[in-house]
């Protein structure tokens, strides 16, 4: 499903070049559950946003199914992302002036889905995450953990083929964290491919394999 070859990412600051990713090769098959680990600043989030097609300033080859991402324009990448990927941001990025319900509806509103169907999908997700009671609250009325829950809910709402999650349990109780992981496991069992960034060995256990990053290098698969 995913084939990365020789991916390099550089930040140029004046004369200094900082390599964030170096010659990264990575293959992920459909239905896999991969965990990316590594120390802070290793380039995990950077890799994830390249996989998520947000970032286009890199070199190398990226094949997403039969699409050669490195040859696609901005518009096609956005289209590809919209069609297949759900993303959980490391810092949630909920919209402050929208309620939980409305936040969940945002990704659906940009797809060609009828209103009634959208309502059903939001209701279903609220139910699955047990946050029905919170649907009319604003993000700043939620705890950090609840916000993260909503962020995860928003990523899975449109049933993406691939879920990219950047420390989805960072702010959660271990209990809640486990629930998210179990949800991911269930989704994965149903066929969804999942790539997550995590610091926790426990969480990594839910996946099939671990990719270790250090200073931009893949050090262990």
């Amino acid at each position, binding site marked *: 499903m995913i084939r990365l070859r020789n991916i390099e990412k550089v930040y140029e600051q004046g004369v200094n070049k900082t390599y964030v990713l170096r010659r990264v090769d990575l293959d992920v098959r459909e239905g896999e559950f991969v965990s990316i680990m590594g120390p802070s600043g290793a380039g995990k989030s950077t890799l994830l946003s390249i996989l998520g097609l947000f970032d286009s300033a890199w070199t190398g080859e990226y094949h997403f199914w039969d699409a050669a991402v490195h040859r696609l324009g901005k518009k096609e990448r*956005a289209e590809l992302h919209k069609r297949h990927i759900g993303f959980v941001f490391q810092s*949630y*990025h909920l919209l402050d002036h929208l309620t939980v319900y409305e936040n969940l509806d945002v990704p659906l509103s*940009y797809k060609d889905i009828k209103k009634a169907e959208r309502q059903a999908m939001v209701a279903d997700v609220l139910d699955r995450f047990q946050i029905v009671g919170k649907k009319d609250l604003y993000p700043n009325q939620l705890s950090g953990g609840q916000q993260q829950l909503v962020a995860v809910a928003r990523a899975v709402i449109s049933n993406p083929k691939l879920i990219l999650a950047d420390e989805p349990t960072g702010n959660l109780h271990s209990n809640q964290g486990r629930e998210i992981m179990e949800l991911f496991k269930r989704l994965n069992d149903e066929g969804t491919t999942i790539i997550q960034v995590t610091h926790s060995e426990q969480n990594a256990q839910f996946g099939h394999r671990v990719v270790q990053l250090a200073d931009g290098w893949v050090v262990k698969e």
Partner: protein
Amino acid sequence: MGTVLQDARYALRVLWKNWGFTSVAVVALALGIGANTTIFSAFNALLLRPFNFTDPDSLVVLWERPPNTSTRNSVAPANLLSVREQSNSFSHLAMYNSNSLNLTEGDKPERLEVAAVSPTMFDALGVNAAVGRTFTAEEEQEGRDKVVILTHDFWRRRYATDPAIVNRQLMLNGQPYTVVGVMPEDFNFPPTSNDILIPFTVNDRVRGERGNHYVRVMGRLKPGVTQAQADAELAGIASRLEAQYPETNSNRTIATESLKASYVRGPRPGLLVLLGAACFVLLLACANVANLLLVRAASRQKEIAIRMALGAGRLRLIRQLLTESVLIALFGGALGLLFAVWGIDLITAGIPASLSRYLPGWKNVGIDVEVFWFTLVVSLLTGVVFGLAPALQATKTDFNEALKEGGRTSGGGGFGRNRLRGALVVAEVAISLTLLIGAGLMIKSFYEMLKVEPGFKAGSVLVMDVALPRAKYKEEAARVNFYTQAVERVAALPGVEAAGAVNILPLSRSNTDSAFSVVGRPRPEKGREPQANFRTVSPHYLEVMGIPLRRGRHIADTDRADSTNVILINEELARRHFADTDPIGQRLNFGGDKDSDNYEIIGVVGNIKHESLVEEEIKPEVYRPLAQEPWYSMSIVVRRNAGDPAQLAGAVQREIGSLDKEQPIYNVRTMERVVSESLAPQRVTMGMLGIFALIALVLASVGIYAVMSYTVSQRTHEIGVRMALGASPRDIRRMVVRQGMLLAFVGIGIGLIASYWLMQGLTVMLYEVSATDPLTFGLISLLLILVAFAANYIPARRATRVDPMVALRYE
């Protein structure tokens, strides 16, 4: 004081650092303040203080009129003399009227504008001569009345302010007059830009004249006497006169009007509309700058929070912020004063001398001390008005929140947080819509005026005035001879198609009418006779002017002094009095019992607009042959066969001048200019309103643009998130535009309602256009929608360029 200076110094530094913002704000305010200064300078000079006489409130003018009407007629001199004898209400009563005299001195004759005034007028007004003296009471008597006072302008123009002019003799209409004095520079009464003043002579003819109402009267009420008391007394006198002189005084009363009110009637409605419009422009500018300040205050939240954390009181901070806004306003005021110089030039250039000479105070339209103070006060007030709300808002922030800054919050995105900003944009749109609609209505109305058929053809016609002196041309035959020859000679010039003469030109702002009756029908009651505009014309006048003959025949060379007295009537007179009989051959009487006092109707001619192109009621009008009723003053009209008639001017003047070397020929102008100048007040009002509306449109679109740009910059994070969640550029564009257009639509809605109500005030100025004209309302709304869309679209486009990678960069 020290802290004020310190505030000011700090404020200057802040403004200098943000020079981009500062200059936009200063220019916006300058436009608003400049508009107000411009209109105020005209308003102050023309409406508030047209005259600078002492105790102006007790100065009045007197009118004669039929009872229970608002008609205002001039006064018959004998009636005024009766009032003078019988009334106790006035300390002074003076007669005055305007005419012209020919000054012969050296080799170039000059026609002078003359006011004939009762000597008591100077005391009534409380003015004295600048050089020499004013008239003495005896100088209104025949024989002692050959004295003259020069106005300051004429003194300077003709005699280079030579003080030795006093006691010199001037030859006026061939008679010697002694100069007794020169008036001060600011003297402007009667307000007809006179060259000289002479006494209004009271002789036996004047003492017996009750039938001709040709003098204007001004006076001063005695201390303690009200206008109502004076009116009551005048009514009593009028009814005694009615009993005594039923022939002339039936159905006439006399009443006062405040002197000022009688002279400001003309420019009043237009100036009020413009003043209102100027206030709107300033309000709009305030809203605009307030909005910019709000935007800036948001970016200064951290500075303010730190200052508060360091112990600055809220009042102190508000004062600091207000100092900034007042400084901006003062800069705006200074620049506005400059704009006003230009605006005043526009107004003064737009009003022709033929009109402005009737506007007292016209010479004082300009930037003087009062206008300067006005501008200063308005600027200070403005600074507080637009500065207060942003200052209050900025200092209200919870500094804990602001210090934290950044974080995961997505900035003030929705309406909730930006309610004040949104409200200001709505107000801006509403105000500019109102101004645009006002201007739109005026433009449409002006267009309607231009389409008016005046009943004559002005194109290719040149006109000029001649005033023969009474002494030299006492004989009717001499006048007939002069004008007949003048017209014949001019007509023979190459390039001239036809020439004619008339006593009073259409649209010339003067008129003469006369009561008449139809011979053979019962005479109407005295004072209730129908009136007709009275014209004396040469045989080809109607042809030159293109006024069509509908029935019968034209006046011909064969209509001479010794042949049957004949007359032409216009269609309106025929319609009113000969609806079911043929008027040709009928006779009209204009007073007198002899058979020759009855004039035989020989033809019916088309109606023309006389008072103005937009007059509502066409009056009955009659034309008499020049040969049978020669006036001293006539206008010569010349039609050129092709090309610009103005090029004939020199040749025509030479040809007429050769008839009498001492005879000035003046006021040479094309008839097209006469027509165009008759619309000057409407043109100036429309032009000013148009300029104001344009400024409003620009300010409003800048306002929308600034707020939407700011909103977009505030929403960068949100936009990034939405794009990451699948929003296409089109989705983003639509979201931003929708938010901006919502504000615009609310503003347009409010503006439409406000306009529907406010435009009623424009009704008196509109011609053939309803104050709620749906087409204008619709088109202007559409225009504003398009402009608002453009102002929204640019920030919306910018919003789509947000890079989610950058917007979502983790903290």
